């Protein structure tokens, strides 16, 4: 196929624009990484920089000796493991029956569930509900109220519906119960979509902070994102370890500490993200094509 001059010009423009867009997208992160390695003087020096003039570890010394960060990491890991296990279990148990056309009252169940996507009690009644169940100030307040993500659950249901009934029938003829069919036949066939939904759940739990700020009163139970918010946004002195590590306060800068905090807390996601990206994407496709 021959291309006209106009089309060639557009192709060039297209490549340049997309390259710039990609660079602009990641530049702010790069800026944070540079700042995190800077000395206090360097961070406040006027001038555009692609690389710090001298590398300083002061920011990281502060962050890595900050007990609140480590506590936050631990609480986040607990929350992610517990929350994702609960979400996967509940979602599978709900999605599988709903995927069966012969389930009695299937439409009523589906309607009751889908309705909650469009109408909810809202922030305050949900908060009072968690309190009335005495879940506040425990990790359960962070994992049970979002025990099922309805959108993700429906994606699972759609995938289950696409599995040919004959495959399950043959297992049933061999005498397998519904639970056995689910565990031994359906779930092994659904590994990619389970990975996707599981990863979404992990990311959601990793990034959640508001529920922790609302429900958790003891600061040693704070998840990482809540600790981060205290340090980065609220600049709360009891969280940032600023007065304990630096012998000479002038050697350390709040911007440097904030940047190092951001890097330390975001690094795990940044590192694994390129490798698991394809799983995230598959899920959106399944959801969008059959949803």
């Amino acid at each position, binding site marked *: 196929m021959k291309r006209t001059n106009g089309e060639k010009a557009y192709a060039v423009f*297209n490549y340049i624009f997309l390259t710039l867009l990609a660079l602009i997208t990641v530049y702010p992160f790069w800026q944070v990484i540079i700042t995190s390695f800077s000395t206090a003087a360097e961070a406040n020096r006027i001038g555009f920089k692609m690389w710090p003039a001298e590398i300083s570890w002061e920011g990281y010394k502060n962050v890595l000796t900050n007990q609140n960060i480590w506590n936050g990491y631990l609480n986040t890991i607990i929350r992610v493991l517990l929350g994702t296990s609960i979400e996967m279990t*509940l979602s599978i148990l709900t999605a599988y029956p709903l995927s069966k056309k012969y389930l009695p009252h299937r439409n009523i*169940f589906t309607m009751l569930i889908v309705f909650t996507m469009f109408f909810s009690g809202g922030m*305050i009644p949900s908060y009072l509900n968690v309190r009335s169940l005495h879940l506040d100030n425990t990790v359960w307040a962070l994992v049970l109220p979002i025990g099922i993500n309805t959108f993700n659950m429906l994606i699972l249901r759609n995938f289950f519906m696409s599995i040919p009934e004959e495959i399950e029938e043959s297992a049933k003829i061999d005498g397998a119960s519904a639970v056995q069919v689910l565990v031994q036949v359906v779930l092994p066939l659904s590994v990619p979509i389970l990975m996707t939904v599981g990863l979404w759940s992990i990311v959601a739990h990793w990034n959640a902070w508001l529920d922790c700020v609302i429900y958790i009163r003891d600061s040693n139970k704070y998840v990482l994102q809540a600790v981060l918010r205290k340090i980065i946004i609220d600049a709360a002195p009891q969280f940032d370890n600023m007065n304990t590590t630096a012998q000479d306060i002038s050697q350390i800068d709040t911007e440097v500490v904030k940047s190092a905090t951001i890097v330390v807390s975001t690094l795990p996601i940044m590192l694994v993200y390129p490798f698991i990206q394809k799983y995230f994407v598959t899920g959106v496709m399944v959801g969008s094509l059959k949803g």
Partner: protein
Amino acid sequence: MQQTKRASIATQKSIAHPKLHAQLRQYKVHKALLLMLIPGMLYYLLFHYKPMYGLLIAFKDYRLLDGVMGSPWAGFKYFEQAFSSAEFWRVFKNTIILSCYKLIFTFPAPIILALMLNEVRCLKFKKVVQTLTYLPHFISWVVLAGVIINFLSPSVGPINMIIRAFGGDPIYFMGEKKYFRAILVISSIWKEVGWGTIVYLAALSNVDTQLYEAAVLDGAGRLRQTWTVTLPAITNVIVIMLIMQVGKILNDDFDQIYNMYNPAVYSVAEVLSTYIYKMGLEQAQYSFSTAVGLFKNVIAFALVIMTNTISNKVSDYGLW
């Protein structure tokens, strides 16, 4: 003896209610499935429907110790209080303005980007651009707000470095009312534009290549092909996404705004969700903030139904 009696009663019953009997048989056959459904339905009951019942406190003088049932009725007192307060209407207006900006600028961005990516023939380049632009989607607004505050900082931010290099005075962007909404819109594009393309790219990959060949035979250039083949092919996806967006017009992005704003810009950036949070959780005005929340939810729900009905009539595409 007793067994036969029971059996005969059962048959009598089944004769009297054949439909009920068939129904019970259905339950028995699918017992395992129904049992599986119990934990999930309990979850929805406890964490979705119970809070909906809790909406009653919008019509009551809610007191923590008395609970939802025990608190005395207050009628529409809290709705009247909200509707007669200037602050409420300012917050309502901010929400609508911000949503309209996002609808105009944030919504088309991933469509345009998807069309541009679709033109790229070097697959490796496409992959790299996609990976980099998806990245902010996975990072929390807490971190992104920190990154943005650093980026726009009057002392260390690169934007102000450039302004200074050209002899200008540094601007405290985050504290300026006239810039703040633009910052919200641009940063939400930054976070979601790449991720938003996935849905459209999936739809684009399903376009029948024969259509392009036919268009070429008819002498259509690339631009014309985009207009007559590509866009119509993804119209249904665009319509569905638009419905969802309009339905969400009152569901402002709490995470984004709450992490990015500060007292200097409250007058343009306070929106319904941050207002509800402040009134309800910081000032413990439970009934008042629930009334505001209920007002918001009812309108949002009506909007979803309305937009869906319209799109079903106009284009045959809809969510249901």
